[in-house]
């Protein structure tokens, strides 16, 4: 007699088993079942919002195999395409460590025999109704013995929805979880280092764990486009193994290959375990870009910030600021310190704003680079020209800057505050002008920051701001040093006016940049606009004064606005906008040729050595290097003697192809100088500040190396 309750309990159990019983499908070939495919879950019910694991179980006939994520020399990886109800999320396939098969003809493949479970994490939405969850997947596989047969199936998995769930298929999931590769262990357990010579990659793995495993192997997982040969073991000692991976594709920048380091007692043994090698960022191709600690980079950022003060494009502003200090020299220490802090705050505000903007743009997936990414935009240069001109006219005394009284009343109650605000904006102005001067330290530091998280980018920019404002803070905190500065007097007016000319010189430089970007016409239309801006400034100084009558002031204000708006619309959104990007070729001189990636490739194929100058019209460091080093007689002669092809990559307008290359070299902007000695050799990267001797030395060394081959 079986108690009724037992019968019911059994029925419930049986039904629930039936409910989770998957619907499998099999692939048959010439009457023989080759593969049986089914979907399984590690739970007996779906709980809203609770992640569980689904698995595709493939059972292969003896001798037949399906493939790993990287199938090797033949075959195809199994594919899964899920059709999920809305709100469901599915993770990546977790591939168990495969078996390696070597067939005659040195054919290596990676796959699974007998049975494999491909697991994926799956998360249902937070809200689900009570009806059973129906999950379905289209599966494609290739199964091979001596011959290969493609197979496919549409599989279903139906699970009841509940508030609680119990584990299901525990043994099977545990077995395959045990066969998953592990993340790379900490550096105290194992270390991995990559090196590349020519087309050979080497990976050195050092770990005490290796001593326990007689068999060690490397299963590569090359990314799209990379073709690698079979990894071989170069050397093996108790706790160290060196793998050698030949690179067969013409992948010049490949400095590592992701994959698994697999170890076991015997090849393909069931006890096999593996560590996953993540790909480190592709930095070693940039020549000398060792991974430095974050603090080192922040220090570089700080030093770079200080150096920014010495850059030619900030010089006029420095003079302005020093001039400001002289004015303050007669005032109280407290006031001086306050204006110094305000100036520094301006610097910080600009850099933080810039960092936030970059983080937002980076998040939006836009390709943005520093080192004057704004300078690749003609409208930014134009806006800066207007600011510089207005400042110059102000210094000449054409007009005085006075904030509207209402604003003054609202925002500033004392004159001291007004001074601070002025200092604050001067701080911003100084930094705006500093951006294109990628000082040598700053280049490396920012290049690093760009591949980093928003928090690091932000701290990087803050470090630069701190560096740039340090001298001002120091001077304002130690006014004792200001004592050595001359006393204010009538000579100040002359100095002030003279500063105006310095600003006009800056304007000339900006117009040169505009000319390089938009041609002569672009520069002329911009100048027309600037002329009308000057007239507007003069009108402001002549007619909009506190002593002028209200009517005169009103008419003048309207006229000034009309003048600025009308000329803006006519010259800028009309004439200037219609000018096209200036051609790069028109800026080439001497034996320089236009750089394109194809051109570089073609020259290297022909066995030439190539020197590439990444430059821009607005980059002063570039101009300095070109005039003093690259165009010097000795260097030109050396280039000629060694028959080196000279290519110029012009980034004036922010060419995206060049932007990408700069990023590959870990550089956020120009200048960048690279010597490609030959097809199979590593490119040599020069420092941002060139010297004749460093160029001559490298050229000599390269041609010797080429000759000795």
């Amino acid at each position, binding site marked *: 007699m079986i108690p009724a309750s037992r019968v019911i309990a059994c029925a419930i159990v049986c039904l629930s088993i039936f409910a989770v019983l998957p619907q499998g499908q099999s692939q048959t070939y010439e009457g023989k079942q080759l593969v049986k495919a089914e979907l399984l879950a590690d739970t007996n019910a779906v709980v809203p919002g609770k992640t569980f694991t689904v698995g595709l179980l493939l059972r292969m006939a003896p001798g037949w195999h399906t493939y790993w994520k990287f199938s090797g*020399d*033949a*075959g*195809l990886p199994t594919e899964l395409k899920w059709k999920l109800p809305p709100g469901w999320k599915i993770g990546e396939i977790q591939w168990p460590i495969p078996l390696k098969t070597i*067939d*005659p*003809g*040195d*054919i290596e*493949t990676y796959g699974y025999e007998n049975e494999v479970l491909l697991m994926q994490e799956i998360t249902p939405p937070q809200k689900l109704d009570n009806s059973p969850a129906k999950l379905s997947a289209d599966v*494609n596989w*290739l199964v*091979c013995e*001596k*011959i*290969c*047969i*493609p197979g496919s199936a549409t599989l279903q998995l139906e699970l009841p929805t509940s508030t609680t769930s119990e584990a299901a298929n525990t043994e099977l999931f545990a077995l395959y979880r045990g066969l998953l590769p592990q993340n790379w262990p900490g550096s105290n357990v194992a270390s991995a280092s990559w090196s590349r010579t020519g087309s050979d990659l080497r990976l050195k793995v050092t770990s005490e764990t290796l001593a326990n495993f007689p068999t060690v192997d490397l299963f590569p997982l*090359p990314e799209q486009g990379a*073709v690698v*040969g*079979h990894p071989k073991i170069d050397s093996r000692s108790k706790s160290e193994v060196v793998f050698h991976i*030949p690179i*067969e*594709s*013409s992948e010049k920048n490949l400095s590592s290959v992701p994959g698994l380091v697999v170890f076991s007692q015997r090849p393909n043994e069931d006890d096999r375990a593996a560590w996953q090698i993540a790909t480190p960022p592709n930095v070693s191709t940039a020549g000398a870009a060792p991974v430095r600690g974050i603090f080192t980079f922040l220090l570089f950022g700080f030093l770079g910030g200080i150096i920014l003060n010495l850059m030619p494009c900030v010089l006029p502003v420095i003079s302005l600021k020093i001039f400001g200090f002289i004015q303050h020299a007669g005032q109280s220490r407290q006031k001086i310190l306050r204006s110094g802090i305000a100036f520094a705050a301006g610097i910080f505000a600009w850099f933080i704003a810039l960092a936030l903007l970059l983080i937002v743009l980076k998040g939006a997936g836009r390709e943005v680079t520093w080192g004057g990414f704004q300078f690749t935009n003609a409208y930014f240069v134009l806006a800066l020209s207007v600011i510089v001109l207005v400042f110059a006219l102000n210094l000449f005394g054409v007009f005085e800057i006075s904030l509207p009284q209402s604003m003054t009343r609202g925002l500033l109650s004392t004159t001291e505050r007004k001074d601070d605000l002025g200092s604050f904006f001067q701080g911003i102005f100084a930094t705006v002008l500093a951006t294109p001067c990628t000082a040598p330290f700053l280049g490396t530091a920012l290049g690093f920051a760009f591949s980093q998280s928003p928090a690091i980018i932000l701290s990087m920019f803050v470090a630069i701001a701190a560096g740039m404002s340090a001298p001002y803070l120091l001077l304002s905190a130690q006014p004792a040093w200001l004592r050595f500065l001359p006393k204010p007097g009538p000579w100040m007016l002359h100095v002030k006016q003279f500063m105006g000319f310095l600003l006009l010189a800056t304007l000339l430089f900006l117009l040169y940049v505009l000319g390089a970007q938009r041609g002569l016409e672009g520069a002329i239309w911009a100048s027309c606009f600037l002329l009308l801006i000057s007239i507007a400034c003069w009108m402001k100084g002549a007619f909009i004064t506190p002593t002028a009558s209200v009517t005169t002031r009103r008419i003048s204000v309207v006229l000034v606005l009309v003048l600025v708006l009308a000329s803006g619309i006519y010259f800028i959104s009309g004439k200037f906008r219609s000018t096209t990007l200036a051609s790069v070729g028109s800026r080439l001189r001497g034996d320089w040729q236009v750089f394109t990636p194809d051109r570089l*490739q*073609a020259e290297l*194929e022909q066995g030439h050595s190539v020197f590439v100058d990444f430059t821009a019209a607005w980059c002063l460091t570039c101009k300095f290097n070109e005039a003093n080093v690259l165009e010097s007689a000795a260097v030109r002669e050396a280039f000629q003697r060694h028959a080196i092809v000279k290519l110029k990559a012009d980034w004036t307008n922010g060419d995206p192809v060049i932007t990408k290359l700069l990023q590959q070299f870990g550089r956020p902007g120009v200048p960048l100088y690279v010597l490609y000695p030959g097809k199979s050799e590593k490119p040599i990267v020069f420092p941002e500040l060139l010297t004749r001797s460093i160029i001559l030395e490298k050229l000599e060394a390269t041609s010797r190396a080429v000759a000795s081959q």
Partner: protein
Amino acid sequence: MKTKTILTIITALMATAVFAFDPPPVGSAAPDFSLTDASGKTHSLSQYKGKYVVLEWFNPECPFVKKHYGSGNMQKLQQQYTGKGVVWLTIDSNAPGTEGNITPEQAQKIAESWKTHQTALLLDSEGKAGRAYGAKNTPNMVVVSPEGKIAYEGAIDSKATPNPADIPNSTNYVKAALDESLAGKPVTTPQTKPYGCSVKYKSS
């Protein structure tokens, strides 16, 4: 004594290098071979010097080969380029007793019923030509320049699937390499990872 040991090691290393069946790099000289076709006629690579030669590794049982023949894609390519003076050699390197190995009679039958347009369907059951080129897949494609240099090696196209429906949406690398070469331009993509079935070589 010591010198002898070192010499032995060096010789052993060199032997390993020779017998590792890695494909010769693009730009290097294409290894010569001499094979017979279904009618017993001998074809060698050197006899076609001065012409572009396409080498296509073949296995009539392989779903990846069937993808390109079943859809008529391969025949179309063969017809188009042999029409332009290109020599097209289809090679079967599968060992006797394996699926995909064909006798001269079978070869003739396949060529007729599949309406192929290659210059010759060559039998390489010893796997000599296949190993010389490091051909690991069917189809594996090689383009040899008139100077006897390898101009392209790798897959036939960009979609590594056995599904003929993928052909219209894929980039045909062989076609691109031939078009560029015939126009006197350098080949943009000279090497790709081949896909398909493995070549079933005779154990050595």
